[in-house]
């Protein structure tokens, strides 16, 4: 199958959704400029023009309300933010209106609204441009939160979001933008709330989100050399969170490591560990391990960024912990080495 970059897959999904459904339009700060949100909105801008793709003032709160209003009147806005940190400005509209309008109206109205927002990382973007806030959104009934890890899912989940008659927040990790993978040419729709087993294994399950899926696969690869068979699950959506698929795997392996891009406390790893702890009580042969950001803001300096972000090495160590295997962490490439690919101003 043809290979696309993650960002190209987003661009293609957007164009296909717009071609199929004239209700879809794109708005957000900078969506129609020459850079087009790292290229993801450029194709739509050129193909559909200023009536379907347009820039907005820096008024994120109002624009979220505007998108809700347009959705209530039959359109399907795709609202794009260059960082999910900016969504903090829009929480009232997201939490109090978008998430609740259908319920409060007794089901007589729906809010088909898709929001894309990027998770930044590295190159000293510091505390306000690198948060990974999925748990906050996923806490709110009425919102959907998807976090594609592959180009195929970036396309399939975005297309599904753009045909879902409810608010969906798509969080895209910046470090995935240049990754390539097979992507079918036609439009296809990946269902929300279905995790994917992306590597089979029998000794331990790693359930990972977004970029951490790549780290988990790398850790699995390293441990395979030691005959440790790791099953890797790509969670894909934070709400709905598919704990069933994870439980089915844990029933087999008896061991679970959760790897998330956000903070540890009150994060994805908390909710999943709580569910698995209950639903797989009899199956768990070791405590669930959580690999996530330490509970501190993001430091700017690369000296501390290195220590801040866990990766394949930490996942490997957590796997070993659940297996009670002694020994040094496997020689996964360090975060620093991987970081090279993403160097440069942003």
């Amino acid at each position, binding site marked *: 199958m043809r290979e696309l970059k993650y960002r190209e897959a987003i661009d293609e999904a957007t164009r296909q959704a717009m071609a199929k459904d004239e209700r879809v339009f794109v708005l957000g700060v900078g969506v129609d400029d020459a850079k087009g949100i790292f290229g993801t909105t450029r194709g739509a801008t050129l193909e559909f023009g200023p009536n379907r793709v347009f820039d907005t003032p820096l008024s994120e709160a109002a624009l979220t309300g*505007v998108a809700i*209003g347009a959705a209530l009147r039959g359109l399907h806005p795709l609202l794009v933010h260059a960082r999910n940190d900016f969504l903090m400005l829009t929480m009232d*509209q997201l939490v109090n209106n978008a998430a609740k309008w259908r319920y409060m*109206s007794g089901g007589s109205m729906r809010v088909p609204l898709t929001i894309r927002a990027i998770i930044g990382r590295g190159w000293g973007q510091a505390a306000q441009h690198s948060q990974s806030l999925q748990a906050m959104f996923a806490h709110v*009934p009425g919102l959907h939160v998807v976090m594609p890890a592959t180009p195929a899912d970036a396309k399939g989940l975005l297309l599904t979001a753009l045909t879902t008659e409810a608010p969906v927040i798509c969080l895209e990790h910046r470090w995935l933008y240049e990754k390539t993978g097979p992507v079918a040419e036609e439009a296809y729709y990946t269902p929300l709330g279905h995790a994917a087993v992306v590597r089979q294994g029998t000794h331990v399950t790693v359930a990972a989100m977004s970029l951490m899926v790549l780290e988990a696969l790398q850790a699995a690869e390293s441990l395979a050399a030691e005959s440790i068979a790791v099953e890797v699950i790509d969670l894909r959506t934070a709400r709905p969170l598919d704990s069933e698929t994870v439980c089915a795997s844990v029933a087999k392996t008896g061991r679970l490591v959760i790897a998330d891009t956000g903070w540890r406390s009150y994060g994805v790893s908390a909710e999943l560990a709580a569910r698995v702890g209950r639903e797989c009580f009899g199956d768990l042969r070791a405590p669930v391990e959580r690999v996530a950001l330490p509970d501190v803001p993001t430091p700017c300096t690369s000296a501390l960024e290195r220590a801040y972000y866990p990766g394949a090495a930490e996942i490997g160590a957590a796997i070993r912990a659940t297996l009670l295997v002694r020994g040094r962490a496997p020689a996964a490439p360090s975060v620093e080495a991987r970081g090279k690919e993403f160097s440069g101003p942003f």
Partner: protein
Amino acid sequence: MPPLAPERLKGFYVQMTRIRRAEEAIVARYPEQEIRCPTHLSIGQEAVAVGVCQALSEQDVVLSGHRCHAHYLAKGGSLRRMFAELYGKATGCCGGKGGSMHLASPETGMLGASAIVAGTVPIAVGAALAAALRGSDDVSVAFFGDAGIEQGVTHESLAFAALRRLPVVFVCENNLYATLTPLSKRQVSADVSPRAVAHGLPGVSVDGNDVLAVYEAAAHAVARARAGDGPTFIEAKTYRWREHVGPNFDVELGYRTQAELDAWMARDPLLRHARILETSGVLTAAERLALDREVEAEVADAVRFAKASPFPEPAALYADVD
């Protein structure tokens, strides 16, 4: 503006009376503790909702805030379903799940209300954006109180609507207070509209107790919007007779005087309009009494309907979430 036909003028009176009688019924019934939700009454402010909505067509839409009964009714919402909603019944306009602060009647163009002050101002702008993008000539209206201008999102909304010349009318019901706080403690000037028009849209301040003045301003704004000339801001000065939330009077709290309340009650928008109709021979006192009776019967029927309706089934708790 051409003179209004007598039937229209009577209609204004009926609309205002329907709101007044409905809310008086809430006052009467509230102590029974069967209407189990906070209610913010518009008694004294009826002319704003009616004057504006009479300038709209059925396809036009409105959004509102915590004090939304009048807007719901003026935009054609069902009286029965409103009372059923207040009583928390399955037959309510939101199936009982929204309540007083979230009345909605999408089939008549009332798209709902947020209880977060100014929360729907951008939503109304979004409805206008949808109209503009689809090339329809529908107009949308944002109703909000004087405190609405204190929220940043209102300024963002005004600026965006002006920038894109969207067909939206911003209607600020300036009733001089937010909860117990007078305007002077919250804002630099007694007029709200100058701070709005700075964003590049025309604005007017009208007597919100004069339904014809409100109608005229709204009709002008709606015509502009429909013609593609962009948004307008209307400040309607009016006054809430009852307490901020709940059925009672509240002068004893000390934040406003009996004299002030009396002066505003003397400017009752219903009586004022009724007098004009009587003087001009459009509606005699006897005809008016007959209309009042009809509305009262309608309200009584709505209350009966609400009381007789069933509560939602337990399963409704989990329905319509996402």
